[in-house]
């Protein structure tokens, strides 16, 4: 097995592989090639990287124009700026205008934990879920990142792909392959289902080890595609296990958890249910690991949440 890397590094390496095979593939960056680990890409494929400077609105508008002229475009910038400052460009120039741009939010969530709220993206799922015509992906590990980038390059629809910069462990995969819109089964269990995404899948798996010692068997799903949601797997979890816990590096408002809650309620399924994410409050600062622990997104915190849910 290859050494575990940050999903960011896997993204950059995969993109270079794809660019070598597709001269129409272009990466557009906003003074972010260093942050995005794209310096090797720039060196190896200098004709396939477009720099726009620190101008995220321009980044997305130009990306839409390049796509209009037939280019396979990846617009790369820190997720915090990309999905806030250039939201109108994503909405109108890309999604409304049907431009197949891959919008890549790097250092997402609280990857820049100690830099404060300006550099956190805990809103991106919520705002983009409300915009028609965009697929939202948060891969959990290197495998999902590589497959998601390859899928985005092939798709002729707008895609938002976000990941962090911390080294991510390889996850066990009980079923082979990777399909957009289909959750990956990471662990099988009958008591509780964890539905997590992105960099919260790994701590969720840690929680299941603690819970197993107490005789609580957990199912873990990596819901790498937040939109369109794998509805069938969520409904099955609600029917086959005694409760569902969603986990995300995002506000509890409008993200994966509320997508699942809405689905379950509208399907008439009454199950024990908990959304774990960031509360509607000023966010504490620190490293990503410290912030996760603060909000109970670590093995111990998630195990405690699960026990509470089981005990009702």
């Amino acid at each position, binding site marked *: 097995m290859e050494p575990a890397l940050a999903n960011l590094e896997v993204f950059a390496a995969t993109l270079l592989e794809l660019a070598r095979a597709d001269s129409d593939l272009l990466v557009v960056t906003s003074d972010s090639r260093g942050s995005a680990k794209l310096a090797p890409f720039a060196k190896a494929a200098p004709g396939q990287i477009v720099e726009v400077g620190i101008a995220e609105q*321009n980044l997305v508008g130009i990306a*839409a124009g390049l796509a209009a002229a037939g280019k396979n475009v990846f617009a790369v910038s820190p997720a915090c700026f990309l999905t806030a400052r250039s939201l109108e460009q994503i909405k*109108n120039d890309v999604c409304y205008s049907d431009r197949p741009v891959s919008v890549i939010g790097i250092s997402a969530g609280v990857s820049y934990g100690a830099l404060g709220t300006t550099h956190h993206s805990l809103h991106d799922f919520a705002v983009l879920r409300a915009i028609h015509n965009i697929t939202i992906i948060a891969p959990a590990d290197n495998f999902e990142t590589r497959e998601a980038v390859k899928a985005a390059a092939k798709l002729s629809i707008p895609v938002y792909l976000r990941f962090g910069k911390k080294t991510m462990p390889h996850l066990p995969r009980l079923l082979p392959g990777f399909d957009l819109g289909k959750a990956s089964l990471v662990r099988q269990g009958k008591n509780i289902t964890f539905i997590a995404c992105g960099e919260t899948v790994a701590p969720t798996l840690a929680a299941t080890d603690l819970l197993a010692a107490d005789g609580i068997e957990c199912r873990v799903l990596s819901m790498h595609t937040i939109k369109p949601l794998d509805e069938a797997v969520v409904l099955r979890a609600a029917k086959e296990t005694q409760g569902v816990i969603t986990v995300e590096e995002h506000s509890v408002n409008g993200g994966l958890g509320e997508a699942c809650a809405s689905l379950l309620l509208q399907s008439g399924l009454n199950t024990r249910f908990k959304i774990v994410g960031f509360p509607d409050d000023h966010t504490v600062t620190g490293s990503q690991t410290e912030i996760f622990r603060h909000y109970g997104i670590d093995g111990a915190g998630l195990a405690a949440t699960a026990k509470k849910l089981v005990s009702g």
Partner: protein
Amino acid sequence: MLSVPDLQLKSVEYRKNLLRLIKTAKAGHTGGDLSCLDILNVLYNRILRVSPETFKSPDRDYYIQSKGHCAEALFVVLADRGFFPKSDLDTLNQYGSHYIGHPTRDVNGVEQNTGALGHGLAVGVGIALAGKIDRRDYRVFVLLGDGELAEGSNWEAAMMAAHYRLDNLVAIVDRNGLQITGSTEDVCQLAPLDQKFAAFGFEVCRCDGNDVGDLVRTLEEVPFRPGKPSLIVAKTKKGKGVSFMENVAKWHHRVPSDDEYSQAMAELDAVEAALK
């Protein structure tokens, strides 16, 4: 390709079609439509290398209407050029129609969905940059309203256009000097507009944006300088062609009453008769 006298007549025809359209639909950005109509006329009947047959060609010239609220002017010209049947415009703003108050790609001939201001120039930069990368010789024309230049995204795009030496990009400012609140200079001063774009790296020309002859002479000269994007400050009158609408801010999106409509059409009929 129309001669200048034919273009003059065509402008009157377009103005009449435009007012008929707005009157029937009971909605439209009348003042801005009338100010930019001569620019659209010259672009589509003289300058742009695009037609219904070549609209999907990778070598066509592109036109992006950043001032999307003046969709009715674009629709009138596209209909006349055969991009869709003129009768389609009978559905303007009606339930389920593709012909709405802003351009969308559901309408044949429209390159980009616009409406929110300050978006068109960046998209134009992207298309022009792709043309340079692919060594295609198409040009990209972007029509900007002067009021929308308060949006900072325009200036981000302007910097990039010069940085990448996009001499295949032509930005035209419909400089009618009015926005919904009043004078652009009272709302957020733009002057000296030509110096600002020149400082951003554009080669700038001024022309009379309601004089088709001047527009032809100016647009046929692009790029004004190799290696630099072109910017045309096209001085226009909001409401141009109807005496009581000219330079009156309230006509930004006012629909003429029956009496006003009759008077406007009579004025245009008289101009048309004189030209013939």
